[in-house]
C-alpha cells in the first residue's frame, strides 16, 4: 500500500497508526497502551531506517551484495475469555510468605520470579522472603485458567496481587493498632511496616505475625470485572487481554551469487509494560526472534511429488537454525515499558506477539527492498535457492 501511495513504509505507518490521545471508537474508552507507534519509531531509529531506505533493488554495497531494509509493526490484543483465576498466600509467623497459584511456571520464571515480585512488592517484604510452594496442580492450587494467551501476568498475576492486597490489609489492621495510626497512614517495604509521615515509627512483618500468633491467609482472584480499573475517567481493562505494541526492522545484504542473506542490523521492539523479570522476558524475545528468522529462511517440509511421501523426516532436512546460523547479532532486542493501567504494576504479559507478529514480515520486506521485483513473489521460506530463482540464476 505504501508503495502504491508513493510513500515509504515508515511514512505510511506514521500516517495510519493511533496515538495516545485516541479512544476506542466502540466504547469511547481510552487506549491504555498505544505503544505500537513508539515501538515503530524506536525500531526505525535503531536501524537508521529513514536514511537507509531506498527504492527496491537499487542499492549495491561495495562488496557487490544487494542492500535492503524492512520494517513492520503490530498492535496486539489477544487472550480474552476464560475462567477466573485464583491465588492463595500464606503469611508465616517469621514474616515470610508462601503462595500457590494455578499458573504453570512458564519459562521457569512466571511464578518464582514475576509473581513472587508482585507479592513481595505488594506486601512490602523482600523478594527472598516469598516462595511459590505449589503451582499448576489441581489438588493444591486454585484454578489457573487456560495457560495460553501471553497473559499470565495479567490474569494469574492479578490474582496474586489481589491475594497480596488481602494479606496487606490484614497485616496493616494489626500494625495500625500497634502504631496507633490509621491503616491509610501506613506503608510497607523490605519487611517493615511504617508510618508514611514518620518512617521511624515502624514494626516488622515478623513482629506483627508474632503478636497475631497464627498464620494469616490471603485469597485473591481475577476475572473480567476485577481487572477493570479507572483510567482517564473511564473503566478500562477488557477481560484478561494481553495488550502490546511490537515493531521489527532489519537491514540485510543479499549475496547475488549464492542467494544467501546476511543480517547486518536488526531491531525488535516489544512493549510488555513493566519488565519484572528481564532474564525470562529476554528469553521470550530471543526465542521469538529465532522463530521469526527461521520462518523466513528455513522452516519448510518436503514431499516426494509422485507419492506424497514425507522426505524431510528428520532435522537434517526439516531444518531448524543452529546457533551458528543465528548468532549474537540476531539475538536480543529491546523492551518498551509503557505502563498499562490494567495489569499489576503496569505489566502487559509477554509471549506470542513477539513470535508471531513483525519479525518475519519486516525481514521479507528487507529482502524485497534489496532485490526488488514483485513483493508478492517472494516466497516463504526465502531460502538461498528461492532467492537465486528470483534473481534468475536458478
Amino acid at each position, binding site marked *: 500500500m505504501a508503495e502504491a501511495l508513493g510513500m515509504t513504509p515508515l511514512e505510511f505507518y506514521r500516517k495510519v497508526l493511533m496515538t495516545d490521545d485516541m479512544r476506542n471508537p466502540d466504547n469511547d474508552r481510552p487506549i491504555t497502551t498505544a505503544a505500537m507507534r513508539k515501538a515503530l519509531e524506536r525500531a526505525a531509529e535503531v536501524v537508521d531506517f529513514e536514511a537507509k531506505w531506498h527504492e527496491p533493488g537499487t542499492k549495491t554495497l561495495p562488496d557487490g551484495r544487494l542492500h535492503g531494509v524492512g520494517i513492520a509493526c503490530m498492535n496486539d490484543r489477544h487472550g480474552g475469555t476464560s475462567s477466573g483465576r485464583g491465588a492463595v498466600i500464606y503469611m508465616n509467623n517469621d514474616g515470610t510468605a508462601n503462595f500457590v497459584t494455578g499458573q504453570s511456571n512458564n519459562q521457569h520464571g512466571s511464578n518464582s520470579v514475576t509473581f513472587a515480585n508482585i507479592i513481595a512488592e505488594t506486601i512490602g517484604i523482600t523478594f527472598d522472603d516469598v516462595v511459590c510452594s505449589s503451582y499448576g496442580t489441581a489438588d493444591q492450587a486454585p484454578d489457573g485458567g487456560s495457560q495460553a494467551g501471553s497473559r499470565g501476568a495479567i490474569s494469574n498475576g492479578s490474582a496474586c496481587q489481589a491475594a497480596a492486597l488481602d494479606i496487606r490489609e490484614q497485616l496493616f489492621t494489626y500494625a495500625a493498632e500497634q502504631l496507633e495510626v490509621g491503616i491509610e497512614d501506613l506503608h510497607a517495604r523490605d519487611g517493615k511496616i511504617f508510618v508514611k509521615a514518620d518512617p521511624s515509627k515502624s514494626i516488622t512483618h515478623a513482629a506483627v505475625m508474632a503478636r497475631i500468633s497464627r498464620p494469616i491467609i490471603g485469597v485473591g482472584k481475577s476475572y473480567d470485572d476485577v481487572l477493570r480499573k479507572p483510567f482517564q475517567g473511564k473503566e478500562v481493562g477488557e477481560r484478561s487481554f494481553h495488550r502490546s505494541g511490537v515493531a521489527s526492522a532489519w537491514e540485510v545484504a543479499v549475496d547475488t551469487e*549464492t542467494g544467501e542473506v546476511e543480517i547486518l542490523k536488526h531491531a525488535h521492539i516489544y512493549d510488555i509494560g513493566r519488565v519484572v523479570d528481564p532474564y525470562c522476558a529476554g528469553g521470550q524475545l530471543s526465542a521469538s526472534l529465532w522463530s521469526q528468522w527461521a520462518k523466513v529462511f528455513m522452516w519448510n517440509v518436503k514431499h516426494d511429488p*509422485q507419492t506424497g511421501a514425507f522426505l524431510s*523426516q528428520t532435522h537434517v532436512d526439516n531444518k531448524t537454525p*543452529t546457533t*551458528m*546460523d543465528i548468532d549474537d547479532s540476531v539475538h536480543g532486542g529491546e523492551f518498551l515499558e509503557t505502563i498499562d493501567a490494567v495489569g499489576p504494576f503496569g505489566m502487559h504479559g509477554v509471549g506470542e506477539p513477539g513470535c508471531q507478529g513483525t519479525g518475519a514480515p519486516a525481514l521479507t520486506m528487507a529482502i524485497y527492498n534489496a532485490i526488488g521485483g514483485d513483493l508478492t513473489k517472494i516466497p516463504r521460506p526465502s531460502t538461498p535457492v528461492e532467492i537465486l530463482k528470483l534473481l534468475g*540464476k536458478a
Partner: protein
Amino acid sequence: MNKITHVNATSVDAAAAELGAGAAVIAGGTDILGTLKGMIYASPPTKLVNLKTISGLDYIREEGGMLKIGALATLAAIYESSVVQSKYPALAEAARKVGTPQLRNMGTIAGNICQQVRCWYYRGEHVDFNCLRKGGPLCYMVPGNNERHSALWGQAGCFAGCPSDCAPVLVALGASIVTNKGTKPVADLFGGLDITLAADEIITEIQIPEPAAGTRMTYLKWAWRKAIDFPEVGVAVVAVVSGGNVSNARIVMSGVDPIPHRSTAAEDAINGKAINDVNATAAGAEAVKGATTLPHNKWKVQIVKTQVKRALLALA
C-alpha cells in the same frame, strides 16, 4: 528391532576375520547408527565389528615424506593437529566443517570418506524407496524431489551427492588409503554405487604426500546451515602458485556427484594463468560443463560456479 551381534575387535586381522555376509564395521558410529535407527535397510547388518577397540590406529604423524593418519583418528583430532593446520589447511578446514563438535569427536577420517549418501530417498526412515543403491530399479532422485542432496553428475544411474567433506580434499591432495589388503589412491575407493572395499577389507591408514613447494589449498563448503549439514557443494582446490600463476591445480568437489568429482576442465582453465576474477570465473564456468541438471537442482550449477571461483580467489 533387529538383533545385532556386537564384536569388539582387538586387531585388524581379527576384525577382518569377523567380516563377511551380514557384517559391517563400526568405529565412530555416526553414520551406521543412523542407518540402523532409521531402519533404512530391508536387511540391516546382523553383526557390527567394533574397530575402536583396536589400539594404535588413531595417530597423526609425518613419516617418510608424507603425512600418515590412522584410520581411527577423529575429525576433531585432525583439525586440531598443528601439522595438519600448517601443511594441509584444506583438510583441517574440511574436518572442522563436519557436523557438530559431538560428531567430530566421534567421527573418524575413514568413516567420513566411507559414509553412505544422504539422499532422502535412500535415507527415508520407514519409507520404502527401493532405490538403485538398495538393489531396486531406479534412482528416485531423478523423477522426484531433487532440490537437496542431489548430484549434477550421475554414477551408474544414481544421482545422490557425495556427503563427505574430507574426501574431495584427500583426492585433491593425491592421498592414498592403506588397507589390510594393500594401498590405492583415495580416488579409487569410489566406484559406481558403493566404495570398492572387499567385504573383509578394512582401511588402516590415510597417506598424504607432502605438498610441493608453493602449494596453496582451500576447502569451501556450501551447506544449508553453518553447522550439522552435509555439503551440497564442497570445493577443494590444491594448486601450486608461483609468480602469481597457477600450476598443477586439482579441483575436486563433493555434493555434486555420488563420488568426489574432479573437474579437469576447471583445472585446465586455471593452470598457467594468474589468479584473478576473470580467470577464476572462467574456471568456475568450466567446472559445470557437462552437468546434468534435474528439475529442482539447477541452483547447484550457480553455487558450483561461485564456489569454484571463490576457492581459486582464496588462493591468491
